[in-house]
């Protein structure tokens, strides 16, 4: 009987396609928007992925990694002196303008690494050595810099090429790969001292202090010591990431606007699928009545209707998921907008689609259940 129930649905091409589209659209919208949202959240943690250190020390007012309130140079030695800290090094991070050959400027993110240790160094080098940063005026650029700053050049920027940042010449000694970050600007690495040369001079230039816990200390414990003894802000890498995400939830409309779209996708799914499915049931009410007269129990018919709903739901979900993976893959290829698909996302939209199916079939099931089998004898 279930097979016949499905056939009844598939045979109604127009409604079947409408239902599939509704479900697919809902699944697409939810997964896709969810993916972009997760992608943005990942982007906000870009600095943490591109400059690795167990502990980040910042101005106490800083709550997230994309915000810098410079500290005094002496703060580095204050942190070093805390028991539980193995080492602490300075880092510069700032947005500068790099000059293209045509005279226009592009924003970049300049990262200054501690000369001695190069802590926070690029995680993936494509060409060159990080140590060469010690050469005067040397920089390591990421692949995005190559793309952005090569505009107007005969051939793309490469090893040994020079360009200007803030009217000062920079020479490329290496090319690295980075993760996308919130501002979307390319990363350029130099030494801390060199970065201070490139950057416009201000009273305080120290953006972050990167530190590591001493033997026998966890990063958590060390960070707590730093906070207590210096009054500075200190986070483990993980905690800084969480704090960053929390900050974006609290202080930007981004999560709400995405949530709204996702809920909208759900509602549209319920509306389209519910409406179409309900009219499918109404059109077939006569036949359901005949089935009831012939002795099909309410339970059997309910299960038939649910199976119909869940079948289109699952197929529609498959189409929607496929589409959103495809679009997401295109996004990633294009570099933006951001997109990430942790397994919770398809799982979540799957549950949502199942809910849509349930809502969509409830009305129809109610109609069928309250139908008197004797109606089949009338008109």
């Amino acid at each position, binding site marked *: 009987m279930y097979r016949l129930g499905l*056939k*009844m649905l598939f045979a109604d091409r127009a409604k079947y396609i409408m239902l599939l589209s509704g479900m697919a659209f809902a699944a697409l919208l939810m997964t896709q928007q969810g993916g972009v949202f997760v992608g943005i959240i990942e982007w906000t943690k870009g600095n943490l992925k591109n400059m690795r250190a167990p502990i980040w020390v910042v101005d106490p007012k800083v709550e997230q990694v994309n915000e810098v309130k410079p500290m005094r140079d002496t703060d580095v030695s204050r942190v070093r002196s805390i028991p539980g800290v193995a080492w602490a090094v300075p880092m510069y991070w700032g947005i500068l303008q790099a000059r293209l050959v045509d005279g226009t400027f592009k924003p970049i993110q300049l990262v200054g690494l501690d000369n001695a240790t190069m802590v926070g160094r690029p995680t993936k080098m494509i060409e060159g050595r990080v140590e060469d940063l010690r050469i005067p005026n040397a920089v390591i650029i990421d692949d995005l810099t190559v793309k952005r700053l090569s505009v107007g050049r005969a051939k793309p920027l490469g090893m040994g090429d020079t360009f200007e940042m803030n009217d000062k010449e920079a020479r490329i000694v290496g090319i690295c790969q980075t993760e996308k970050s919130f501002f979307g600007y390319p990363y350029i690495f130099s030494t801390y001292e060199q970065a201070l040369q490139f950057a416009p001079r201000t009273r305080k230039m120290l953006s972050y202090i990167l530190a590591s816990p001493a033997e026998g200390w966890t990063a958590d414990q060390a960070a707590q010591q730093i906070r207590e003894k210096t009054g500075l802000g200190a986070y483990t890498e993980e905690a800084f990431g969480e704090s960053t995400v929390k900050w974006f939830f609290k202080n930007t409309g981004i999560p709400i606007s995405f949530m709204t779209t996702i809920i909208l996708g759900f509602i549209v799914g319920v509306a389209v699928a519910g409406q179409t499915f309900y009219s499918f049931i109404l059109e077939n009410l006569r036949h359901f009545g005949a089935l009831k*007269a*012939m*002795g099909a129990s*309410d339970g059997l018919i309910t299960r038939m209707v649910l199976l119909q709903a869940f079948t289109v739901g699952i197929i529609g979900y498959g189409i929607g998921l496929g589409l959103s993976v495809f679009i997401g893959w295109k996004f990633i290829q294009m570099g933006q907008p951001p997109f990430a698909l942790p397994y919770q996302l398809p799982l979540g939209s799957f549950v949502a689609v199942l809910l849509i199916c349930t809502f969509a079939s409830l009305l129809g099931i109610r109609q069928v259940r309250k139908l008197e089998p004797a109606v089949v*004898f009338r*008109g």
Partner: protein
Amino acid sequence: MNGLDRVIHVRGVTKTFGKGDAAVHALKGVDFDARGGELLMIVGPSGCGKTTLLSVIAGTLGFDSGEVEVFGHSLHTMSQKQLTAFRAGHIGFIFQSFNLIPTLSVLENVTVPLLINGVGLKEAEDRARAMLEKVNIGKRGDERPTNLSGGQQQRVAIARALIHEPRLIICDEPTSALDKDTGQRVMELLSSVARGPGRCVIVVTHDNRIFNFADRMTEMDDGRVQRVHENPSKSMAGH
């Protein structure tokens, strides 16, 4: 079994639709019997309660008072669940407008009562094929019912009504959507394949052109059975 057993007993059944001023007393104390092996017709003016009585006997409609016994099952004491199971096992339905499911093939339509009774797909299809042969429509099994003429569709409906070998066949106006000749042929088929020992066929009709197929006639008027008589054009001597 004695074919003349009274297999259906209806005593003092009343049924009122609606309430107060709008109330319609469709059945006002119906007494009615049917015997095994017979084709019984219920006739009477429009609105006299024929369909209502048929629905009550088929277990598709509840009634207000009275007793209904069908093949020893007392419908007035059964729960909805029991009634549903009763219909699935014992009743074959033939409707005026055929009520075939247009999106299923002819063969699939015929399998429905078997599937409802839990018969496997393969066996159901085999039996449906054989039944379609029996109603002379064996070659059309894979088509959609809507491709068939009215008479052919009613044959499919007959096949569907008989497939699970129910003991009671219920037909409401089976020929009124058909022209005279087609109606005659459908009734010929019905009275030849549907009738069997111990099985009872009840036909509600307006159509006096098919009265001659009845073994007995039950005349209703105004919610009551007025008269029951043997069909003079038929001899019951054979039974």
